[in-house]
């Protein structure tokens, strides 16, 4: 089983304070890894480090066998890493269809793009994605005019259009209804295998549906790692979540 993402002894420190502390983490190809932990555990920072938004103080990050530590965001993205943000980020003054067209980013050279209309390319993929996220009827609507749920779907759609090998999803079901959450878990389950996913989440029911392996972070380090049942019953985990029902309660 090939390792698609590998973090080796990664530390991110602000002066003396270590947000991520000698953290090591490996995700296999095709796996769906859930990254859990209370606020401040270092989850989002880890995502930032992987995608290049922040620079690690020490340690290495490897993607698909190649070192990506310290690379610029767009270079990492081009290698096949896609990210969905906690607060949905779409292009507000572009239509839904233009949002997706931009997400179809196989060709990123500005001059080549000057001689293309971009209307036909990837149309099949776009149609597929549109149906998947249910925005076929909202094509002409501006990104900024969508409801919160629709914006989430659009961003998911954009990441799907981008078609990366590794998808990093930061709280994808935040603000979603029961139904939408169900739909998301279906999509994720379809994606894994062909692609790899790392999902940061708080909704335990959702995590149960999708996770192959869970990594529980605490104070910038790994507290526990393994399949759900294992982590749930780990005594150290129970100790940290003193008095509560273990991590099942963590929301």
């Amino acid at each position, binding site marked *: 089983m090939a390792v698609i993402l590998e973090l080796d002894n990664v530390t991110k420190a602000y002066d003396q304070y270590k947000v991520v502390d000698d953290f090591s983490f490996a995700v296999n190809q095709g796996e769906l890894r859930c990254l859990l932990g209370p606020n401040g555990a270092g989850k989002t920072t880890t995502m930032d480090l992987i995608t*290049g*938004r*922040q*620079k690690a103080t020490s340690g290495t990050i490897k993607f698909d066998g190649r070192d990506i530590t310290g690379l610029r965001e767009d270079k990492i993205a081009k290698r096949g890493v896609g990210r969905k943000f906690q607060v949905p980020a779409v292009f507000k003054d572009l239509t839904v269809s233009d949002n997706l067209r931009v997400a179809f980013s196989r060709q990123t050279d500005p001059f080549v793009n000057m001689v293309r209309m971009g209307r036909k390319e990837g149309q099949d993929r776009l149609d597929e994605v549109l149906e998947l996220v249910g925005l076929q009827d909202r094509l002409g609507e501006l990104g900024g005019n969508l409801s919160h749920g629709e914006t989430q779907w659009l961003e998911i759609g954009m990441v799907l259009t981008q078609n990366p090998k590794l998808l990093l999803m930061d709280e994808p079901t935040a603000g979603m209804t029961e139904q939408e959450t169900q739909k998301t878990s279906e999509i994720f389950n379809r994606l894994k295998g062909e692609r790899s996913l790392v999902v940061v989440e708080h909704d335990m029911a959702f995590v149960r549906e999708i996770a192959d392996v869970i990594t529980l972070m605490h104070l910038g380090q790994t507290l526990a790692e393994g399949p759900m049942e294992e982590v749930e019953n780990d005594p150290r985990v129970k100790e940290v979540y003193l008095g509560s029902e273990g991590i099942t309660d963590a929301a």
Partner: protein
Amino acid sequence: MSVHDFWTPFALEPFINALLIGLSIASIWLVAALGLTIIYGTMGVINMAHGEFIMLGAYSAWVMQYFIGIPWLLTLPLSFVIVAFFGWLVERGLIRHLYDRPLDTLLATWGVSLVLIQSIRLIFGGEPQYIDAPSWLKTVMVIDFIHIPWMRIFIFFLAIALVAVTFAILFKTNWGIQIRAVMQNKEMAASFGINSKKIYGLTFAYGAGLAGISGAMFTGLKTIFPDMGLGYVVEAFLVVVTGGGDLLGSVATAGIMGEMFSVFSYFTNDTFGRFVLFILIVIFLRFRPQGIFSPSMARR
């Protein structure tokens, strides 16, 4: 000026004179930028009309002296009050509504600048006006080879006084503490009951007042005309931005800029000196956008 006269060779005495004049220039830029530092540092507002507040201060002083006969020295604090009040009006009427839109604040204040310049032109005409400064300030101090006009010395010390007063207000008074709290963290300050809206209004007024009094001071040096403000706004901004929106930063920047300008101008001339200075600042800002003193925020 021919090509051959471009470069002035080094000579100790005129050079020392240039260094001293540099201090004077620094003090002028500092006091011009002081109000803007407060406004930008506290509120993040980029007030493109700042130069025009300076101009208003100058014209207030002129009107008071010419039409009412108030002595020059007295026009200084009065100009502060007049322009401070005007600034308060501008904040209430316009700036207040644009706090979450910094770019639009920049543009809207440019509109204010335009309106102010042209209104003054309408009322007073475009010809330069002269102010009558007290005779004891019109002479030149001569010590050996050093020639410095007394007015420049006066402005220098007045600038220092204003900076000291501003420091005192910011660090010793209740109001100052509130301003600094809002400067650092608006939301947190609000949870302590600090009404940032009120703070902003008074702060903007204070910053405008500082511009007003500096305008009044400058009447002692040069003639006044409607678009005189334009000559200060770019320099003032560069002082503020390079200084990081921090009072100490502005003092340091103004000092460095003033001296550098004087030295460059000594060797070449005024306009070329300005050109080199601007280029250096642009390069500096590219590598350290947060300014001189702010804690180093490496991008990632």
